[in-house]
């Protein structure tokens, strides 16, 4: 407990240094663009694959459970839409990104730590936390919402394709379901969650990477710890944000 509190305090102190003014804005923008490519664009294939198949499975499971004649046909489209927007795209995709991006960030920064590259930045007078971590956080905040919107679209497309191939509904009825009871606030809610999750994934992974001590084994451990901790943080933040945004 004391160790966890100490770590939390160290994390807050780290964020204070991360969010200081960059030494050179030119370097900051350049690094941010590189990070958008590395942690954003490179995640597109896995997000696309997951979203299309999960959307298809959600639609098929819903269709297979619809035995009551009282339920209208468009219910399948509606449930696919609402599960995708409310939970699947922002939360499940973020958990997947916690694994992919979180481990990548923690091992990259951790390797820089154990090979003294971070010390080299510090000796030169560079604010290493700001230089290394801020562009990653900025890239996540800019590109994770894009990934989630892309995921929503692909998930609903996957659902439509699965239903069409299985001959369980028509395009018109599915689209009617997707558009039924659509609440634009749910998009705001999903994107707010995505921003918070993106921040948590990158900042927690950077924290574990930056403060790693030892050698390559410790970098591996830090990377695993980063994924576990950011996943837990996402689940807790998901609960709190849902309480705050949907129920209050």
């Amino acid at each position, binding site marked *: 407990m004391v160790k966890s509190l100490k770590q939390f305090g160290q994390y807050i102190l780290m964020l204070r240094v991360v969010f200081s003014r960059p*030494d*050179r804005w030119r*370097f900051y923008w350049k690094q941010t663009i590189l990070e958008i490519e590395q942690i954003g664009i490179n995640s597109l294939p896995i997000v696309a694959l997951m979203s299309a198949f999960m959307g298809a499975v959600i639609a098929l499971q819903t269709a297979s459970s619809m035995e009551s004649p009282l339920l209208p046909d468009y219910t399948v489209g509606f449930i696919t839409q609402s599960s995708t927007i409310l939970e699947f795209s922002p939360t499940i995709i973020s958990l997947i990104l916690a694994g992919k991006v979180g481990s990548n960030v923690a091992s990259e920064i951790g390797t820089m730590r154990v*090979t*003294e*590259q971070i*010390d*080299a930045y*510090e*000796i*030169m*007078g*560079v*604010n290493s936390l700001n230089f290394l971590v801020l562009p990653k956080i900025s890239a996540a905040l800019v590109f994770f919402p894009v990934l989630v919107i892309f995921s929503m679209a692909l998930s609903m497309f996957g659902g439509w394709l699965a239903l069409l191939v299985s001959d369980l509904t028509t395009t018109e009825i599915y689209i009617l379901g997707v558009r039924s009871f659509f609440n634009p606030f749910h998009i705001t809610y999903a994107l707010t969650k995505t921003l918070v999750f993106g921040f948590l994934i990158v900042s927690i992974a950077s924290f574990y990477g930056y403060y790693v001590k030892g050698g390559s084994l410790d970098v591996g451990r830090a990377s695993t710890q980063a994924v576990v901790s950011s996943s837990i943080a996402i689940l807790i933040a998901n609960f709190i944000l849902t309480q705050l945004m949907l129920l209050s």
Partner: protein
Amino acid sequence: MITVNNISKSFNGQKVLFGIDHVFEEGKVNLIIGQSGQGKSVLAKCMVGLYEPEEGEVQFDQRNFTKMDRFERSNIRQEIGMLFQGSALFDSMTIEQNVMFPLQMFTNMTKAEIQQRTDFCLDRVNLAGRNKLMPSECSGGMQKRVGIARAIAMNPRYLFCDEPNSGLDPKTSIVIDNLIRDLTQEYNITTVVITHDMNSVMEIGDHILFIHQGKKWWQGDRHSIIHANNPEIESFVYASAFMKDIRAQLQKKA
């Protein structure tokens, strides 16, 4: 000139440095020597601010580095070059970009001036024309030389080298030692080298600080260390059979 006054440092309650006082002279290669685990690297890291000493202070030409805040230290650090034990080259950058980095970060030089300075530094360490190599494509000796080129890019007043010869063959070690000595004399900088390599001690040791059990044990130069009448120094200097032979010959002559 770098002055350390009464530097002490502990880790998890275990004291590793005990009130070290020393002056590292300008225009000389100052060596910190001693057996492994005696506190050499900790002292150097306290000097450059990677560790905070519990007691004492470090002064760079009468400027009290220990009492400075992060922003004031940043200015001093731009006057420090450091060669790390593992070279610590930025592995996502070419060797040219490694050398350019501090110039792009901290100076207002034009692209052409930066290129010119980078080429000069790489040429100075005999790496002209190797600009586009990645660190992973360089040998250990080349990586050390790139590390030196990066360290001198900003015309430092202070140069720190942490075990510059570790992992290198004896011939390459001498090349690196000579480079460090030449740069020190050429630019009149204060150089601090941490080593336990006796070849380096005899090659470049203008001013030597011997640390034992976290304490300042002895100081002198490469000539006096051979005759130092101290059991700890003797066991360090004459650790190898080769050095023991030299001692026997010296004693015979005497």
